[in-house]
């Protein structure tokens, strides 16, 4: 493990300084949207559809409207009559109505909203609304949705205009495919014909829940001057402002979105969710309105895409990867949310970070009558890594090659072209692979083959187990183009404020931005106050997601701070009579580089410039990355992103031969973070990603029956708990400074999530010799796979009753 500069105490960057919000959070004083109470506030509740697909015939809200305490009841029919209101929203397609108009599209689709004096009154009233439905036939999975003549979830589609990368998207007409990404490179068919081996498999990854500690919550009210103020649990305040302004026909200046601390997001809180309906109720009632989801509602609001990946690879006799053809089907549910971007961005990485001259990828975004799927830490990449890294492992094993060595030989190197035709830059994937392999002592006996079963005793009873080790790598591209604006304000006493729309959602952005400013201005980290998103004062930022904040907001803040420093140095250089280029800032002083005694404290510099106390110097910057859009037919682009982030995982597992249960004994995961601004935070992010992903690998899965979610609560949906964490788990930082990153940093929010499932699946294969292709790796699936391999032996033992169908 690298420990960059953790000893150099004078510096703010590269050191594991404690979280600036730590004490406030662990003592329970930090305020979240849930804690927001506005005088005169009403509470809202939603009535949701009980059917997956139905036409709304009639709604009778009469009884609800007269229920004690109720201020307003709104339905989709009301929306279309409101002048100046555009009732549809969505970041990719404006396909979601604030409340269902004409049709409902999933079990849980909001149909009506009530605002009342108390939450209970609002909920009771919502239950009094009578809706008459005409049930339509539904498409409950991707297969059904793709069938010729399948019922359409959406008859018409209107692309949104919010983001440059999504402006050109087009739905395939008269199908449920709302977006199809195509990548064509080389001649796949010819290469397959020449291949010595062809591998073809289908891998699946299920729908899973984000499970943020804090469910979605929004408070909206109208203040003086007709300003619509919305405080919300969102990862995208700037986008929400834009969306609300468009929906309600307001100037951007008349919408103010504020975001306090977020109680976890993981992608669930990206784009608009509750904001449109809550704002609508506030505008309707002219009262503040709060809408907070129950945990059960949270489960049907957004989830991680269920994905089916068909992957076919042609390999030369010597192991070279000649061709890879991948078809990825994304179950996006009833509304597209950000799915087209998931399908695009993960789609173009679906062949993996390997040197493969011929690649064909088709990635389909498919509407179904299920709850909507959207962004989830990793943004679709873990699902495709599961497929390509399982198969790459299968190839190595089949050819009798060491899976680590095989990957090493074929991974992309600096300057190589990715499947998109983009030259690779700043890519420490081999270093990550080596680091994790070393950590689990790869090559010390267990790798690639089934070792003799060690004797394991539990409560004095022997258990038959097998152990194995596996590795996997993963790659993801940073979102580009994207934009971050920031303002840095230095105060006369040497403290500073940062105005930024980056949301502190537990990832440590407040601390990170404070470290960057402290470093640039030579002030103390605890004296830097990061002002939380408030679109009335904090500049535009694309989103807090996609592992982009360190890089983008970090750069914006760094540049803004540099502008403050220029002013500071200009004043000091006059006073010290020295060229500003020779000045440095550290420990609250400005001084001459070669003569540190010659200097001024920050208050002295301010004193020289201003004849008043408490003055400020202000710097602003907008950092913008660019990209060349991928070609519509071939998916090629010379610059598909500004930054790749790569990681690797390694697992040692133990499988109980009688139950099929997989236990992860040792786990290591490495991320190329560029240069770490705060090494401890980086490790925590890597660890957090790993633990979440281990849960998703081993047991998490949303179950649906007839379109109805059947395990939509924490009673029946488990996430990894403390005791599910492997006894040995090591997060590893790999450093490859990025030339454009702030202080060489990249980012780390998702890197640790990319390759976890595949590493565990590969370890299971190493232990048992059976390859599982469906996540999660439940013990039943593992046991069944083992029995299928040895039906004869098991039957002789008389132990197989008959496997389930």
């Amino acid at each position, binding site marked *: 493990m690298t420990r960059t500069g953790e000893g150099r105490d004078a510096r703010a960057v590269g050191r594991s300084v404690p979280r600036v919000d730590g004490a406030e959070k662990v003592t329970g004083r930090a305020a979240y949207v849930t804690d927001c109470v506005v005088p005169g506030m009403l509470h809202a509740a939603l009535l949701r559809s009980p059917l997956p697909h139905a036409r709304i015939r009639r709604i009778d809200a009469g009884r609800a409207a007269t229920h004690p305490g109720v201020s307003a009841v709104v339905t989709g029919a009301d929306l279309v009559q409101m002048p100046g209101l555009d009732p549809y929203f969505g970041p990719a397609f404006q396909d979601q109505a604030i409340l269902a108009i004409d049709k409902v599209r999933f079990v849980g689709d909001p149909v009506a909203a009530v605002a009342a004096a108390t939450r209970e009154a609002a909920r009771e009233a919502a239950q009094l609304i009578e809706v008459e439905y005409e049930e339509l036939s539904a498409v409950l999975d991707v297969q059904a949705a793709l069938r010729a003549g399948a019922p359409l979830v959406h008859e018409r589609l209107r692309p949104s205009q919010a983001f440059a990368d999504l402006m050109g998207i087009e739905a395939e007409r008269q199908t449920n495919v709302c977006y199809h990404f195509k990548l064509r490179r080389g001649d796949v068919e010819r290469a397959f014909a020449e291949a010595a081996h062809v591998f073809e498999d289908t891998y699946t990854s299920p729908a899973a829940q984000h499970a943020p500690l804090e469910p979605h919550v929004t408070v909206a009210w109208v203040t003086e001057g007709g300003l619509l103020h919305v405080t919300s649990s969102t990862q995208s305040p700037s986008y929400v402002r834009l969306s609300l302004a468009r929906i309600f026909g307001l100037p951007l200046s008349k919408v103010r979105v504020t975001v306090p601390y977020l109680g976890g997001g993981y992608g669930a809180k990206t784009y608009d969710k509750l904001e449109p309906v809550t704002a609508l109720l506030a505008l309707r009632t002219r009262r503040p309105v709060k809408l907070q989801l129950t945990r059960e509602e949270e489960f049907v609001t957004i989830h991680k895409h269920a994905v089916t990946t068909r992957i076919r690879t042609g390999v030369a006799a010597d192991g070279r990867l000649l061709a890879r053809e991948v078809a990825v089907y994304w179950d996006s549910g009833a509304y597209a949310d950000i799915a087209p971007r998931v399908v695009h961005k993960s789609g173009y990485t679906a062949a993996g970070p390997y040197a493969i001259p011929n690649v064909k990828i088709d990635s389909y975004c498919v509407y179904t009558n299920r709850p909507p799927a959207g962004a989830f830490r990793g943004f679709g990449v873990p699902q495709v890594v599961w497929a390509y890294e399982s198969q790459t492992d299968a190839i190595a094993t089949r050819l009798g090659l060491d899976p680590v060595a095989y990957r090493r030989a074929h991974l992309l190197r600096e300057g190589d072209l990715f499947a998109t035709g983009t030259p690779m830059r700043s890519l420490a994937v081999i270093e990550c692979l080596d680091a994790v392999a070393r950590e689990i002592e790869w090559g010390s006996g267990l790798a690639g083959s089934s070792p003799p079963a060690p004797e394991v005793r539990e409560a004095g009873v022997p258990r038959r187990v097998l152990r194995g080790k596996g590795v996997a790598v993963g790659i993801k591209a940073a979102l580009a183009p994207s934009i971050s604006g920031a303002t840095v304000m230095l105060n006369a006493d040497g403290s500073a404020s940062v105005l930024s729309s980056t949301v502190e959602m537990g990832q440590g952005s407040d601390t990170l931005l404070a470290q960057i400013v402290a470093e640039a201005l030579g002030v103390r980290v605890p004296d830097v106050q990061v002002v939380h998103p408030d679109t009335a004062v904090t500049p535009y930022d694309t989103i807090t997601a996609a592992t982009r904040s360190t890089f983008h907001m970090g750069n914006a803040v760094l540049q803004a701070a540099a502008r403050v420093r220029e002013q500071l140095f200009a004043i000091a250089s006059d006073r010290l009579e020295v060229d500003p280029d020779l000045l440095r800032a550290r420990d609250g002083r400005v001084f001459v580089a070669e003569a540190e005694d010659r200097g001024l404290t920050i208050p002295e510099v301010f004193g020289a410039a201003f004849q008043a106390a408490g003055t400020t110097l202000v710097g602003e910057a907008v950092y913008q990355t660019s990209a060349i859009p991928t070609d519509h037919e071939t998916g090629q682009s010379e610059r598909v992103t500004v930054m790749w982030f790569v990681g690797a995982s390694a697992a040692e597992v133990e499988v109980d031969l009688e139950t099929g249960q997989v236990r992860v004994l040792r786990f290591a995961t490495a991320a190329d973070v560029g240069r770490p601004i705060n090494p401890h935070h980086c490790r925590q992010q890597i660890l957090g990603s790993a633990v979440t992903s281990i849960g998703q690998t081993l047991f998490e899965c949303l179950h649906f029956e007839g379109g109805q979610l059947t395990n939509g*609560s924490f009673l029946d949906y488990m996430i990894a708990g403390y005791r599910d964490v492997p006894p040995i788990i090591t997060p590893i930082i790999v450093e490859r400074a990025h030339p454009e990153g702030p202080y060489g940093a990249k980012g780390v929010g998702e890197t640790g999530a990319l390759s976890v499932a595949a590493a565990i699946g590969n370890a299971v294969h190493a232990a048992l010799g059976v390859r599982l292709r469906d996540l999660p790796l439940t013990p039943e699936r593992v046991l069944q796979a083992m029995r299928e391999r040895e039906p004869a032996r098991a039957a002789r033992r008389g132990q197989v009753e008959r496997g*389930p169908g």
Partner: protein
Amino acid sequence: MGFDLLEPRTVAEAVELHARDGNAVFLAGGTALLILQRQGLPLPRRLISLRGIPGLDEITAGPGGGLRIGALATLRQVERHPLVVRRVPLLAEALRQVANVRVRHTATLGGNLAHGDYRLDPPAPLLVLGAQVRAVGIGGEREIALAAFFRGLFETALQPGEVVTELAIPPTPPSGGTYLKYALSSNDWPCVGAAALVALDDHGRCREVRLALTAVAAAPVLVRGLDELARGEPVSDRLAARLADIAAAQVEPVGDQRGSEWYKREMARVFARRALLAAARRAEAGPVGDGTKEPVA
């Protein structure tokens, strides 16, 4: 909708309140009831809270050994009580594995049994301990053997309006016991739960074997017919496997998200065997139970 919370001070009063409104429901920890409500089942108009009845949560030594556990004792109280830890460590071991500590602090043992869910942990150890349920209804008090208490899915032997007041655990013979909870993740409900109690004679041969399984049928299963095979035999791997086969034949699993019917039956067999072996190892190592030296806690 809103509800009335009635707070009787005696069991008789609680029973009386129920007799006046047959739709009223008893409330103990509320952990099961409130979940049902969140899942969309409307709460009844009247809840009769048992929480304010003095003495219903006491845990005391039974006459001639054994224990009495008040129905309103929380799972956590029972799990931590020195008498439980000493006399029936099997029960403490099982309770430690229920849900999480927050739930255990609120949920009551009486509520757990009366709830009648098919996948609860505590019924399995209580079945092998031969617990008796004491219930009071409008017709008076009666005792129901736990083995006759569970009737089916959310169905118990309780008559409408009957309050569980106490659970009596008779003295156990010197034995080793264990509860194995097999779950897909650390905070989950059991896929299968197996409780075993094995008493050995001076030669290390079986005197008595008890086994109960949970989550593998509409109601917890107390496995029958083990002693015939086991009595007088040493607990070998082979014997345990044969006993486990008997157990697997007595379960009638309903597939759920934690395992199909096939898988649960397989796991019933696996964990029956492991529980029997583990209990036997404990019995060999130093039995607990009345008449034996109580181990230091």
